[in-house]
């Protein structure tokens, strides 16, 4: 069954959705959309470094993405405006990554696959990385769920209860780096944050509690992956963008349904 590239692509898409759902809700609640972009863009630099040093691409992407997350957290903690820091670092990392990749031989041809994903070329080994990484992210978020949620609601309340908001931010940064690494092959660096935000936003329209929203975001992400793949196959469109387009379509339907239910 795994011999079929479409089956592998579907499994990869659903696997990624399992990790982007629970993390995406925090990206939306904590307004980390731009942070997600910066981390994802940094992954291109990680790809270049990995290719130049014969490391696995996922390792390079996760490493540089995590370094970016920590740098941003550190600079904003010192009083830099988050918006400016992210604006500078996100674009600098993307540009530097593109420059660096041009030095690596025989990669220019596949550059597009790192920017926009190449889900139809997912191998068995990729699947293992994706599902392993997704399981790690889900386990991390489920384990820290209540603490992450309270820190998101109010950092002082969390602190007064003996939690460390800094530690919880670190948990999210690590989870984000992992998600970026495993999503790179699926939708590419430019559309990863779409996969985090759009399903969560769609789930918000219908969910009444935080847990329901996380489960809903996962379901929307998985649905969008399957729908996007189907569309890509039938209309011969690029797979990654088709998945994000499908997610946006589900978002529009969810918003309308949410309005109707409240009316």
């Amino acid at each position: 069954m795994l011999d079929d590239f479409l089956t592998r692509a579907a499994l990869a898409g659903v696997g990624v959705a399992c990790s982007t759902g629970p993390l995406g809700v925090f990206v939306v609640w904590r307004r980390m959309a731009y942070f997600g972009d910066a981390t994802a863009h940094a992954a291109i630099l990680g790809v270049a470094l990995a290719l130049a040093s014969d490391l696995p691409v996922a390792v390079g992407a996760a490493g540089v993405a995590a370094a970016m997350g920590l740098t941003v957290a550190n600079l904003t903690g010192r009083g830099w405006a988050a918006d400016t820091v992210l604006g500078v670092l996100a674009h600098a990392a993307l540009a530097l990554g593109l420059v660096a990749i041009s030095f690596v031989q025989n990669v220019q041809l596949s550059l597009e696959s790192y920017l926009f994903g190449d889900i139809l070329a997912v191998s068995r080994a990729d699947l293992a990385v994706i599902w392993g990484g997704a399981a790690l992210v889900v386990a991390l978020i489920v384990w820290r769920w209540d603490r992450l949620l309270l820190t998101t609601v109010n950092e002082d309340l969390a602190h007064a209860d003996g939690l460390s908001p800094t530690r919880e931010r670190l948990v999210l940064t690590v989870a984000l780096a992992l998600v970026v690494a495993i999503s790179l092959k699926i939708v590419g660096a430019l559309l990863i944050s779409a996969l985090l935000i759009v399903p969560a936003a769609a789930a918000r329209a219908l969910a009444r509690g935080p847990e329901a929203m996380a489960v809903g975001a996962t379901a929307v992400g998985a649905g969008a992956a399957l729908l996007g793949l189907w569309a890509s196959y039938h209309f011969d469109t690029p797979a990654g963008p088709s998945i994000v387009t499908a997610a946006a379509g589900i978002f529009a339907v969810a918003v309308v349904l949410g309005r109707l239910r409240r009316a």
Partner: protein
Amino acid sequence: MTLIEAEGVSVTLGAQSVLQDVSLKLHPGEIVTIVGPNGSGKSTLLRTLLGIVPVISGRVTRKAGLRIGYVPQKLTLDPTLPLPVARFLSLPRRQSRANIAAVLARVGLPGVEARPMSGLSGGQMQRVLLARALLVKPEAILMDEPTQGLDQPGEAAFYRLLEEVRAETGAAVLMVSHDLHVVMAASDRVVCLNGHVCCEGTPHVVSNAPEYRALFGEGTRGALALYQHRHDHGHHHDGCEGHDHA
């Protein structure tokens, strides 16, 4: 026995000195109000007592295993976060339905378990925050301007509730306020703060203290007096010594 004690605490935020040599004790069962103009370090002092803000000198001691209920100044929830009241009350420790129902009834909001937090009015939000603080069966309740944004009847009702809760549970209450009249009446002790402790004592003693009058003026409700204060702070700083009303 002292629940929380600050001894000669100094705090800086960034390059700015916010608290200088502040000492304060909270005993079981008393209501202590910290008053002071905007920027006088009231909220910082409260956050220091909670251990959120580190001190640069002096120290803060809390009784071992002290159960503190904290009510923050306000809760700004992102509208994208759907959070029913009951779920909020179960963070970070799960609470039984019966517990939640009882505590909501106690603060005068029975049956709001399923309501979204974002749909609560200012007064309801403060009561839910108080309910959450009560769930830990606190020995001390620390509140940061709990009545900010409430109208006067709402404010009076909130303080009545607070006094009832204090009477039932015996919990000490330490609150920060810049709103003087209602606070004064409800407090056992008032600490007047302006970076340092200016004066301290019963509401009556404090309201007659020259340092207090210098900070807040006579017969005004604070806002105007705060303004004047900035110009002649130096004088009263010196005048603070010599008058120990505690």
